[in-house]
């Protein structure tokens, strides 16, 4: 907005124009965000009648709480697993679709549409396929002598939510990698080929480095996805279990706040999540030098 372009002059109109969004932001974003920060330094007394200022105590307790630390570890491994799967498969299929001259459009269409499937729906679907008694996949696992039960076995629980989360997110990564590949000038590849570089070399020496801004963008988006948007999958498939094997941070906030009604602890967790989002947003805008120059 640095330029001084043609400007209409009107004293009231611009306020009327920004009002709807600003009002909603104020009421449903800033005020609750402020409340979350405020509540995180208070604790309700035993009768729930008075709020007592406790400073950092909620945070100290939080980071001393084994169940919270477990939730952090689970979230970490969950996002790493999802990340590895969706980046590698997304890139793999994008390179292939970019190579395939014939049918490229067909493949692209068939690979991007899971993006339109809601995480919660993806969860139901995989839950059905792996259902210990009636699931198609669990049936064949059973035939192979493998007893699948994601309701009892923590590893199975972790695998099924990772699968449901990744299946849907590959499409997103594929789309961005494909767009990235198609932006690379063919002359670059041609001249490398003339110099005798084989496809594998060309990929690692030319394509992959040129895709690095896209890869970096996707790393951030995938972290956001597995931290926050997979709530529906967890809620549908495992409810954080078995044990606490899939109790990711955002699910724990929900459970502590709404099921266990522990306001102080839940708010402290919200503040930690807020810090994570702020960090990620900062990294994203800083490294991309987005157009938000002020």
């Amino acid at each position, binding site marked *: *907005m640095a330029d001084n*372009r*043609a*400007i*209409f*002059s009107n004293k009231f109109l611009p306020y009327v124009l*920004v009002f*709807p*969004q*600003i009002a*909603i*932001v104020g009421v*449903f*974003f*800033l005020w*609750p965000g402020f409340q*979350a920060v405020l509540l995180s330094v208070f604790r309700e007394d035993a009768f729930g009648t008075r709020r007592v200022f406790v400073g950092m105590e909620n945070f100290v307790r939080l980071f001393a709480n084994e169940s919270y630390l477990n939730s952090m570890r689970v979230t970490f491994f969950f996002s790493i697993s999802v990340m590895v799967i969706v980046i590698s*498969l997304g890139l793999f*299929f994008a390179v292939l679709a970019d*190579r*395939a*001259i014939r049918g490229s459009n067909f*493949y692209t*269409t068939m*690979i*991007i549409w899971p993006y339109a*499937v*809601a995480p*919660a*729906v993806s969860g*139901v*679907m995989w839950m059905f396929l792996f259902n210990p*008694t*009636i*699931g*198609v996949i669990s*049936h*064949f696992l059973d035939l192979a002598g493998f007893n699948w039960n994601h309701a009892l076995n923590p590893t199975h629980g972790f695998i099924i939510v990772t699968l449901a989360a990744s299946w849907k997110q*590959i*499409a997103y990564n594929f*789309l*961005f990698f494909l*767009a990235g590949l198609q932006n690379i000038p*063919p002359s670059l590849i041609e001249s490398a*080929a003339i110099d005798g570089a084989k*496809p594998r070399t060309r990929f690692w020496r030319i394509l992959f480095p040129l895709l690095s801004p896209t890869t970096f*963008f996707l790393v951030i988006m995938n972290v956001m996805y597995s931290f926050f*948007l997979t*709530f*529906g999958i967890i*809620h549908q498939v495992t409810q954080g279990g078995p044990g606490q094997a899939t109790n990711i941070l*955002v699910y724990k*906030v*929900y459970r502590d706040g*709404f099921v266990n009604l522990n306001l102080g602890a839940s*708010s402290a967790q919200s503040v930690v999540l*807020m810090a994570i989002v*702020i960090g990620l*947003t900062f990294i994203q805008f800083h490294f991309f030098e987005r157009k938000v120059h*002020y």
Partner: protein
Amino acid sequence: MAMVERYPVLTFFTHVMLIIGVFIFAFPIYIVFVASSVPLAEIMRAPMPIIPGTQILQNYSTAIMTGVADVGASSGRMLMNSIIMALGVSGGKIVISMFAAFAFVFFRFPFRQVFFWAIFITLMLPVQVRILPTYEVVANLGMLDSYAGLILPIIPSATATFLFRQYFMSIPKELPDSAKVDGATPMRFFWSILVPISKTTFAALFVILFIFGWNQYLWPLLVTTKEQYYTLLIGINRMLAVGDQQAEWQIIMASTILAMLPPIFVVMSMRSLFIQGMTEQEK
């Protein structure tokens, strides 16, 4: 990219792997579809059939008209709620973002930067990090179990505001200038010039925002307690919560297919716009 030289083996491998990929993405949905077309008894007899059955009409009409008894709302009703929510969220986001971007680009006014940053900050406050206090606000306003409660708290959009702002800034200066010379009011310029030329940006955003609205899960889970406001995704969760009773899988699977159709339809019918809209987020 045109292939630079021929590697028949590599080309063959490319197609084989892509077909496997297509299979991986289509297989789960195919199985769900088959399950939605057979009687429950056939699903229970593991392994279930892999060819669609003859109960398609029956299962889908049961799902749409009555649904699962314990849930209390038909999938048809919940499908409509989901559509209302997705349209409300996407439409709302587009309208308020476009107004705000119009103000930011074509006017200079006190507190402009403050407002801009207030909208920017929403990026850092997704509903997941402020659930309890937002729930309290909505409850105090008496908006639990209402469409307003489902839609309003998630419609501010920094992304949409930035995209419109970006687009408006790329418009040649002559356009607003000549509109001014012709004596057009700002709102006249907005409606008769800006809106028509922004159609592509609209459409691309609409696809993404519709899916965003459709996929909402945590928020509807919190604000709806009356079944007539359940979205379909919440309804499916309730259908599965049967305790010791037998889940009606054929109805659940029919509802699952119904929950996929609108967003898939939107993405497929506006494919190129969707791809354009998506990749613009990166810029």
